[in-house]
């Protein structure tokens, strides 16, 4: 999956979990929590739904290291390519 496809999936997930957030207005290179009222439970649910929709399981050690959505998107993109093979 390319980053653009993953971004579209994330947009759907945000619509479900935090409908008040204007996903298109988020700057994915900046820390998410500084731009939107997303707490750690919301983020857990985002990771769960991403796993359901992309098949990629993000380990907690990785989750703790992501600084922004861009890093998460790149990780999913890279891991999903391994799955496809």
């Amino acid at each position, binding site marked *: 999956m390319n980053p653009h496809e993953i971004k579209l999936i994330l947009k759907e997930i945000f619509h479900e979990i935090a409908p008040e957030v204007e996903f298109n207005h988020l700057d994915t290179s900046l820390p998410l929590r500084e731009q939107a009222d997303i*707490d750690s*439970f919301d983020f857990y649910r985002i*990771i769960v739904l991403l*796993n*359901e929709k992309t098949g990629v*399981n993000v380990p*907690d*050690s990785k989750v*703790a290291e992501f600084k922004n959505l861009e890093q998460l998107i790149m990780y999913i993109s890279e891991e999903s390519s391994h799955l496809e093979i």
Partner: protein
Amino acid sequence: MKYHVPMPSLGADMDQGKLMAWKIKRGDEVKKGQIIATVETTKSAVEIESFREGKVLELVGKEGEELRVGSTIAIFDVRDEEKKTREAPRVKISPAARKLAAQMHVDLSTIKGSGSDGQIELKDLESFVNKGVPPPSPTSVVNIREAIAKAMSRSKKEIPHYYLKTRISLDALFMWMDEKNKLLPPVERLMVPSVLMKGIIQAIKKYPMMNGYYVNGAFEAKESVNLGVAISLKTGGVLVPAIMGAHVMDLARLNSSFTDLLTRARKSELKNSELTEGTITVTNVGDLGSHEVFGIIFPPQVALIGLGRIHKAAVEENGLIRSGFIIDVSLSADHRVTDGLLGSRFLAQIEKIFLNPSLLE
């Protein structure tokens, strides 16, 4: 007999509540513990359970109505319940105690009498009632800030706190979790706080002096671990509902109970028992919080565990320094019940479990 169901008090300083919705209707047979209504306070809605069993004769309170604490919201016919009580073996009780028991609607079968032949005396009942009265909850009250101030001031005034902290490496636990979560369906993914809480509950089982109430000058250990969890609401304020009976849950069930509790806290669907019957509390500052947290004990509980933000730091291992995930786990405990030595052993037990996560199974 008619039983007038009162508007319950859901914490310190709550003098009225708004009846949001009835969950029962006229003619329904209501069981003990059944949810009968939702009551709204300023910060949250709470589901109200019935303490009696009977048939609904009348719903006095109207949905949307503000009602004073203690005023009648509904009338039940509790004839069947009384019949059952009459059929039960007769309880030996002094007249003064019987009068108070009737006023307080106390189930006498749950009280142990200290008089001759096990007769229940007034002092037994008073002690029982004092224990059973929910502690002033810092949550779900009309003025949440004022209530927190009152409960915490009381705690700091009455409880001689001592504080301990230990730093624990989480690398082994993360590796163990990553392996588990790889195999689980996404919807059953384990949350880090659930796993940490599971370890804490196991340590509590080994150190029961941390779990219970300090009332009437004595500590009363509780067999059941109702694990209070501090939850920050997006609308402001903090709720501390408990995962009831957490000591009998395996990790999967604890995880689903925790996510269920978080979901219901947000939807204002907590039960009053969950808000008032915690036996020990965990406060978790989350991934944006401070590195350390030293909480204030919720009376009449005697201990509170603080989980700081998980972060990377230098970890020493076999004489070498490496980068690793760590957490600072703190204990605030009541010096009338335990001391620093026992507290340290309790934290060491938590550390042992976090470093050897296979012990969680």
